[in-house]
C-alpha cells in the first residue's frame, strides 16, 4: 500500500514541457530515499492549466506542484514525501488544498473532464472504480433502446461538435432509418487551430468515449463503430488502442457484451488532418477510402453514411456526456445550463489571459466569468478587448458583450458560435484586421476546392484583407467584404464555406473603426500590421550600444558607438523589428502609422 499518490499530468502539453523527465527523476529520487514502495505514481490525462506544466497533484493533501523541473524533484521527495513539509516555492497558490479553492477550478464544473487528471487512462480498472461502464450495464439490463433515446432527448444534450443538433433526436432518426448494418462514428478530427478539447478527453478518459459509443450503438441498433481521429494525435490513438483492447478483454466490447446478446466493436480510422475532414460527409468519404470531400445533404448520414448505410455521427465530447446522463438522469443534466443549452461545455482557453488551458464550465456562465474569473484576466495589465469564439467558423465578440452567456442561441445571435470549444482572448495588442486575416488564411487554405464560392470567394476576401492591412484598402472594400461574405455563406456546399466569412463579418460588425483606421489613416491602432507601423529611437533612452545597428539587415539603424542617440533612417527601414528586439534598453519604439516615405 502506498501512503502518497503522485498524479503526474501526462497530457500532450505536460509531456512536451518535460513530464517524462520529471517522472524519471522522481523514480530515481524515490529509490535513493528508499520510498519506492510507499509512493505510487499515476500518469493521468490533462489536468487543465497547461501553461503551468509539468504539473503534479499529490495526495492525500491534494496539492499541486507546478512547473516542476527534474532538478526540483529531489527536494520534493526529501522535504515533502519524507519529512512532510510541502515545498512552498513550487506549490500552486501557496498551500491551497484541493482544487476547490483555486479560482481557476472553483468556477468550473467538471463532468466530462472529471476523470481527466484523476485516473490512469491506461488502466480500465481505475475507470471501473469510479463508476465506469455502470451506465452501459444499466442500459443493457434495465432499459430498452427507446428508453435510452427518450432519456437522452429529455436531457437536452446537443452536439458538441459545433452545430448543436439535439443528440436524442439524431439517435431517434438513426434508429428509425431503414437499412442494415448501421454504423456509429465518433468524430475526433478536431481541426480548429488551437483546439484540444477532444484530444484531452481521448487522452485522459478514453473509456468514457467508448462507453458512450456503445450506449449509442445499443440505442440505434448498430454493431460497428469507427473513431475518426487525426494522425497528429498519436498519444490519443495509442491510449484509445489500449482502452479498446482492455475493454474487449473485459467483455465490454465485442460479442455478447456483459453476457447479453448485444454486440458492438470499434475500429480506429486515422485521418491525415485536413480541416474539411471534420465535416461529416467528407469524413464519411474518407472512411470509405475516398478523398475527403463533402457532398450535398440531404441525404444526411442518419440515412446514408459509409457505404450508404444509416449512421450516427457524434462528437467526442457528445459521447463522453452520455454515461453521466444515464447514471445521474436526464433531470440532473437538464438542471445545469440555460433554457436551450444544457449541461457543461469544455473550452480550450487561449490567448491573453493568465490561466490558459482546458476548462469545463456550466452552460449559461457569462463570457466575463470565463475570461476574468477562470482565465484570471489579462496577464500584463493590458485591457482585454474581445474574445474569438468558435475558431475559423466563429466570430469575435467585444468586451461590451461579455455579459452574454455561453449558450448556443445567444452566441449565434451576436455573430459568433459555440463551435467545438476554441476560445481565444484578445487584448489591445491584437489587431482585428489581422485576426480576421489569420482565420481566413486558414479556411482558404483548408478549402477542399470542390465548390467555387468557397474556393475562389475566400481567396478574394483574403486579398482584400491583405490590401487593407497594407494600408491600400478603400471604404468600398468593406462593402465588398460584406457582400462576398454573405454570398459565400449562402452558396457554399458545406459548413466550411458557409461559416468561413464569420470571423470577418463579426469583426466588421464590432470593430469597424479598426478597419477604417487602416483605410483612412493608414494606421494599425494595435501596432501589428507591418506596413502600418514605424520604428523610432527614443533619444533619452539610447545608450549608443550599437546593438540595433548590428541587428539591422538594411543599414537603416545608424549611429556611432558611445555617441547617442542613434537614429533609424526610415527610407531604408523595412519594418522587420530586428532593432526593436535587439535593444536592451527599450529605446526603440514601435508606433502606429505608416512611416513617411
Amino acid at each position, binding site marked *: 500500500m502506498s501512503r502518497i499518490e503522485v498524479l503526474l499530468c501526462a497530457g500532450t502539453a505536460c509531456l512536451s514541457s518535460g513530464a517524462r523527465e520529471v517522472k524519471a527523476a522522481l523514480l530515481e529520487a524515490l529509490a535513493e530515499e528508499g520510498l519506492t514502495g510507499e509512493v505510487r505514481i499515476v500518469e493521468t490525462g490533462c489536468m487543465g492549466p497547461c501553461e503551468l506544466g509539468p504539473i503534479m497533484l499529490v495526495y492525500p493533501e491534494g496539492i499541486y506542484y507546478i512547473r516542476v523541473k527534474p532538478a526540483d524533484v529531489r527536494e520534493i521527495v526529501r522535504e515533502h514525501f*519524507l519529512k512532510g513539509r510541502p515545498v512552498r516555492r513550487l506549490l500552486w497558490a501557496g498551500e491551497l488544498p484541493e482544487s476547490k479553492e483555486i479560482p481557476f477550478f472553483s468556477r468550473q464544473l467538471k463532468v466530462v473532464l472529471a476523470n481527466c487528471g484523476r485516473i490512469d487512462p491506461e488502466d480500465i480498472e481505475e475507470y471501473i472504480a469510479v463508476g465506469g461502464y*455502470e451506465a452501459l450495464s444499466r442500459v443493457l439490463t434495465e432499459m430498452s433502446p427507446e428508453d435510452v433515446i427518450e432519456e437522452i432527448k429529455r436531457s437536452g444534450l446537443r452536439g458538441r461538435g459545433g452545430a448543436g443538433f439535439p443528440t436524442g433526436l439524431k439517435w431517434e432518426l438513426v434508429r428509425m432509418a431503414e437499412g442494415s448494418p448501421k454504423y456509429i462514428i465518433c468524430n475526433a478530427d478536431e481541426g480548429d487551430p488551437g483546439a484540444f478539447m477532444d484530444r484531452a478527453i481521448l487522452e485522459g478518459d478514453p473509456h468514457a468515449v467508448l462507453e458512450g459509443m456503445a450506449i449509442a450503438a445499443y440505442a440505434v441498433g448498430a454493431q460497428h463503430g469507427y473513431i475518426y481521429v487525426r494522425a497528429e494525435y498519436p498519444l490519443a490513438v495509442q491510449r484509445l488502442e489500449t482502452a479498446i483492447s482492455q475493454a474487449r478483454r473485459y*467483455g465490454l466490447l465485442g460479442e455478447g457484451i456483459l453476457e447479453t446478446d448485444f454486440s458492438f466493436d470499434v475500429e480506429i480510422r486515422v485521418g491525415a488532418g485536413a480541416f474539411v475532414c471534420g465535416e461529416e460527409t467528407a469524413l464519411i468519404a474518407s472512411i470509405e477510402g475516398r478523398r475527403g470531400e463533402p457532398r450535398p445533404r440531404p441525404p444526411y448520414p442518419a440515412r446514408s453514411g459509409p457505404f450508404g448505410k444509416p449512421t450516427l455521427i457524434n462528437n467526442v465530447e457528445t459521447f463522453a456526456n452520455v454515461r453521466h446522463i444515464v447514471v445521474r438522469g436526464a433531470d440532473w443534466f437538464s438542471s445545469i445550463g440555460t433554457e436551450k443549452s444544457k449541461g457543461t461545455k469544455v473550452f480550450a482557453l487561449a490567448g491573453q489571459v493568465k490561466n490558459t488551458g482546458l476548462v469545463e464550465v456550466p452552460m449559461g456562465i457569462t463570457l466575463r466569468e470565463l475570461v476574468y474569473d477562470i482565465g484570471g484576466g489579462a496577464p500584463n495589465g493590458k485591457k482585454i478587448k474581445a474574445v474569438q469564439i468558435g475558431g475559423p467558423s466563429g466570430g469575435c465578440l467585444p468586451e461590451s458583450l461579455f455579459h452574454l452567456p455561453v449558450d448556443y442561441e445567444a452566441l449565434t445571435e451576436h455573430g459568433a458560435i459555440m463551435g467545438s470549444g476554441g476560445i481565444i482572448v484578445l487584448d489591445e495588442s491584437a489587431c482585428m484586421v489581422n485576426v480576421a486575416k489569420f482565420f481566413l488564411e486558414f479556411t482558404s487554405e483548408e478549402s477542399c476546392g470542390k465548390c467555387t464560392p468557397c474556393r475562389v470567394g475566400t481567396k478574394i476576401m483574403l486579398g482584400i484583407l491583405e490590401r487593407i492591412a497594407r494600408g491600400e484598402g478603400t471604404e468600398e472594400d468593406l462593402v465588398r467584404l460584406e457582400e462576398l461574405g454573405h454570398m459565400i455563406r449562402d452558396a457554399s456546399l458545406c459548413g466550411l464555406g458557409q461559416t468561413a466569412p464569420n470571423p470577418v463579418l463579426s469583426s466588421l460588425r464590432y470593430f469597424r473603426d479598426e478597419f477604417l483606421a487602416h483605410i483612412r489613416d493608414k494606421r494599425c491602432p494595435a501596432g501589428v500590421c507591418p506596413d502600418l507601423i514605424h520604428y523610432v529611437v527614443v533619444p533619452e533612452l539610447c545608450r549608443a550600444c550599437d546593438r540595433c545597428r548590428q541587428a539591422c539587415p538594411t543599414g537603416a539603424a545608424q549611429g556611432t558607438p558611445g555617441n547617442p542617440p542613434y537614429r533609424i533612417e526610415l527610407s531604408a527601414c523595412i519594418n522587420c523589428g530586428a532593432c526593436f528586439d535587439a535593444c536592451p534598453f527599450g529605446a526603440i519604439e514601435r508606433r502606429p502609422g505608416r512611416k513617411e516615405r
Partner: protein
Amino acid sequence: MRPEELKEIREKAKARLGLRSGDVRVRIVVGMGTSGIAAGAREVLKALLEEVSRRNLTDVAVTQTGERGLAAKEPVVEVHEGDRITVYGEVDEALARRIVVEHVVNGHPIQDRIIEVREVVG
C-alpha cells in the same frame, strides 16, 4: 463478464483509487521532522504501512507531517478520526502495529501510551 462481475471488479478496484477517493475513515499521521526521523520515525512509518496493507484496510491512509514541537516524545503518531485526533508518543514498531490493530481496527485506543487527545473544531 456479467453485470454482477463488473460490480465486483468495481468494489475491488476502489482500493486502487485509495488516497484520491476521499473516503478515508482514519488517517494515521507520522511526525517526520529531523528529530522524528532520528528517533526512528521511518521504521514506525514502514511498520504502519505494512500492517495497514496486510489487513487491506482501504479506508485508512498513512501519511507524514513535519515537526510537531514534541521533540522529547518522538516518534509521534497521530490518529485522525473525524474531528478527533489521538496523539501517541515514543512510538516504536511494536506500538505502531498495536495502534493499527487495537485502535484503528478494534476501536480501543491504547490509553497508557496516549499523550494527548484533541477535538478539532470547525
